[in-house]
């Protein structure tokens, strides 16, 4: 197959050979025909010459006979004198002239013409002899005549005539023989030539035929090869007409599109083209019709199952055939991959854009040489890109970090792990900046790192903040220490109050008692009252001290938050007040309360203080009405209220209600130290809530507290 020259190149040479061979054979045969034609002409000429020769000879013989007739007539007359002989003599004379004329017409060769003139002369002599004899007879009689005849003159001339005729006969025969021989020779030559030339032509034709046959076989073979390729091709191959129909399709069309060949041939191929691609396809067809080949044109074809395939066309129009030779490739998958890749690339570009917007990015090679920096890197380091590329990060090294830190970084990333940490760098202008850094190593297929991508965030401000915070923390620690110190002082103060203030009080009380005991009988009534007052005052003071201590303790005790059932606390409190409430007419109105989160003992104290107050200030009412319930929510906290219909208070003094030892009533009206609501406020505040009161003089009061709703309830 490789020995065969390419079919396309072979074609002109072969055709030339065929044409030349045929022309040569045709020329040879034509010349043979010409030769034969000429030879036949020559043969015909020879045959005509033979006939003429025979006619000449016959006319010669007749001429001789006519001359003899004249002699015979002359002699008869001479002998007889009978005039009848003169008649034949005379007839012979005219016949001879006629015969000589005819012969002159027949004879062509100059030699024979000369011979004929000589013969005519001899005949004329003889005739002249005859006439003399005849005249002698008539005039001189028989004897004279007979003597004249006997002289033999007549016979001699006659012999010469005969000899001349014979000579002419021989000459004619010789000419005939020569011509016959030439004709014969020409014929045999012609036959030889014809045979050889015809043979040559036949050989040529056979050769050409063989060539044609061989060419044909090669063509068929090439056609078969082409057909195999046509059938085999993964690409779609087709021939289409300018009329918009396919003419021939290879099986790849069926495989790709799913239609049978007949289905594809039955409709204009534009029918299969996606509607959106039809205009472009038509434009491409228009170009093809102008003879412009299509190199790479893409459109969508519908498959038999309704799906679409992207095809890439390469088409060569052949104007003289009115055909399009086209190959199409199914690039659907490629396009899908391309689209996917485009998407991925777009996505990555978006990521990069976002990343560049957000972060400081640098890429270094495996030796740490900077190969890429983004704008943010330049901005923070104050170096131009050109000053950074090709350098390594020592350029921005601040010297802040110990060598071990840098070594750990390199060990981490060169062993393939991501390094994260905070680095202090120095910018070109000598200022320092902090970056939270993530360095990610990337590997080649052998698992060796090829480059490191470092993403950084500027945390200089945060670092400064941290510094400030640590300073603040240090300050705070000092403050806390001071606070602890003052707390301690406060504790020792209240300890002193508890211990040292109470002791003298106790002594006052004790000694007054002893005085009263020892001297009771000797004291006047007035003095007795003084002693009693001193005792009462000291008891009062003891109560004040205890309340103050309790209040102080409330601010310092540790809080233990847990689930608190307010309903149970309310019931306990009311039950605990039975001693006080016995004999009173109190209408309790308690609605169910939600569970709250708080310190149970503290909250119990809150409820106790509020309910005790309500009981105390409503004691002049009959019936006293005390309401405990929930008044909705405030900022997510339960609002609890305790309402009474008692003495109430003037709202203009409401702000004094929750102060320590602040009282809105005189002691003789209502006993108490004025510490209860202060304690309530302190406890509620420690629970993150607030407390307030509403009321009017003699209209009763409502105290509200907000408490945290229990998460577990």
């Amino acid at each position, binding site marked *: 197959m490789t020995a065969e020259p390419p079919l396309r190149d072979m074609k002109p040479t072969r055709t030339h050979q065929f044409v030349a061979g045929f022309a040569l054979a045709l020329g040879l045969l034509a010349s043979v025909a010409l030769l034969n034609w000429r030879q036949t002409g020559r043969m015909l000429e020879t045959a005509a010459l033979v006939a003429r020769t025979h006619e000449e000879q016959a006319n010669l013989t007749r001429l001789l006979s006519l001359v003899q007739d004249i002699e015979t007539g002359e002699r008869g007359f001479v002998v007889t004198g009978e005039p009848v002989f003169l008649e034949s003599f005379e007839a012979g004379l005219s016949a001879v002239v006629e015969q000589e004329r005819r012969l002159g017409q027949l004879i062509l060769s100059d030699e024979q013409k000369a011979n004929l003139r000589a013969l005519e002369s001899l005949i004329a002599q003889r005739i002249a002899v005859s006439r003399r004899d005849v005249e002698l007879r008539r005039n001189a009689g028989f004897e004279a005549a007979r003597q004249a005849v006997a002289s033999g003159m007549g016979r001699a001339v006659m012999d010469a005539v005969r000899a001349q005729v014979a000579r002419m006969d021989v000459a004619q025969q010789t000419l005939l023989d020569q011509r016959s021989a030439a004709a014969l020779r020409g014929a045999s030559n012609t036959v030889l030539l014809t045979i050889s030339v015809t043979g040559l032509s036949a050989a040529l034709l056979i050769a050409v035929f063989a060539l044609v046959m061989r060419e044909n076989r090669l063509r068929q073979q090439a056609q078969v090869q082409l057909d195999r390729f046509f059938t085999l091709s993964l690409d779609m191959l087709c021939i289409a007409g300018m009329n918009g129909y396919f003419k021939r399709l290879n099986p790849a069309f069926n495989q790709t599109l799913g239609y049978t060949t007949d289905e594809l041939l039955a409709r204009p191929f534009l029918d299969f083209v996606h509607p959106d691609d039809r205009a472009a396809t038509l434009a491409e067809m228009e170009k093809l019709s102008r003879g412009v080949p299509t190199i790479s044109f893409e459109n969508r074809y519908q498959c038999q199952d309704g799906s679409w395939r992207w095809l890439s066309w390469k088409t060569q129009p052949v104007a003289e055939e009115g055909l399009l030779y086209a190959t199409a490739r199914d690039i659907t998958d490629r396009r899908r991959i391309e689209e996917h890749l485009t998407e991925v690339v777009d996505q990555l570009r978006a990521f990069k854009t976002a990343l560049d917007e957000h972060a400081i990015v640098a890429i270094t090679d495996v030796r740490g040489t900077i190969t890429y920096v983004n704008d943010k890197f330049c901005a923070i380091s104050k170096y131009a890109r050109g000053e950074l590329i090709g350098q390594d990060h020592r350029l921005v090294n601040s010297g802040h970090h110990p060598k071990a830190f840098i070594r750990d970084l390199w060990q981490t990333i060169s062993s393939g792990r991501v390094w994260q940490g905070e680095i202090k760098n120095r910018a070109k202008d000598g200022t320092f900046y902090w970056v939270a850094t993530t360095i990610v190593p990337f590997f080649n297929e052998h698992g060796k790192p090829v480059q490191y991508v470092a993403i950084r965030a500027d945390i200089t401000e945060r670092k400064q903040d941290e510094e400030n915070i640590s300073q603040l923390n240090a300050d705070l620690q000092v403050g806390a220490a001071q606070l602890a110190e003052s707390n301690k002082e406060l504790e020792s103060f209240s300890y002193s109050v*508890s211990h040292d203030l109470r002791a003298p*009080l*106790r002594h006052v009380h004790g000694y007054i008692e002893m005085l009263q005991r020892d001297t009771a009988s000797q004291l006047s009534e007035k003095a007795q009252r003084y002693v009693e007052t001193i005792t009462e005052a000291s*008891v009062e003071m003891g109560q004040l001290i205890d309340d103050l201590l309790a209040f102080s303790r409330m601010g310092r005790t540790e809080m233990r938050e847990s689930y608190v059932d307010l309903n149970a606390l309310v019931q306990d409190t009311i039950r605990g007040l039975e001693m006080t409430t016995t004999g009173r007419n109190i209408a309790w109105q308690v609605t169910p309360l939600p569970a709250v989160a708080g310190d149970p003992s503290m909250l119990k104290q809150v409820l106790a203080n509020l309910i005790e107050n309500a009981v105390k200030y409503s004691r002049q009412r009959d019936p006293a009405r005390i309401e405990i319930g929930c008044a909705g929510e405030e900022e997510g906290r339960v609002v609890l209220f305790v309402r009474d219909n008692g003495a109430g208070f003037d709202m203009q003094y409401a702000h004094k209600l929750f102060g320590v030892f602040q009282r809105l009533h005189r002691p003789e009206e209502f006993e108490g130290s004025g510490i209860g609501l202060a304690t309530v406020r302190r406890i509620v505040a420690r629970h993150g809530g607030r407390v307030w009161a509403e009321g009017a003089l003699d209209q009763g009061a409502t105290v509200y507290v907000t408490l945290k709703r229990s998460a577990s309830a």
Partner: protein
Amino acid sequence: MDALQRILLVEDSPRDAELVLEALGEHHLANEVVHVRDGAEALEYLFRRGPFAGRSNGQPAVVLLDLKMPKVDGLEVLRQIKNDPALKLLPVVVMTSSREEQDLLTSYQHGANAYVVKPVQFHAFVDAVKQVGGFWAVINEPPPGSLLGRERARS
């Protein structure tokens, strides 16, 4: 009536001491009350040091111990008593004006046998002292093997 046992009263305040003695005396509960005025003196008495180096009698039946005192405070006295193998069985009743939780807790942690807050009102105070004295000096049986036990056996 059984012989009343000796009580060691550790009290810096002479008035409180007088009131305690008065209360004990009123109820005839004290045939012998040794009053020392601060923690240091209490330790000298109990460990027979300084002025009490020559003390030959046994340890008291109970120590009534005030907490807040100059020099060595009551908690330190309590700690030393309870850390001493010979003294740790000696009953110590803390009698103080303090209701502070911290004081209560520390006292019991150090091994106090009782904790009594001195009432402000004299009646209540006298009542409290009477009950404390009566219980520890009369009703309560002192721990065996103490010096007190030996004295009692001898007498």
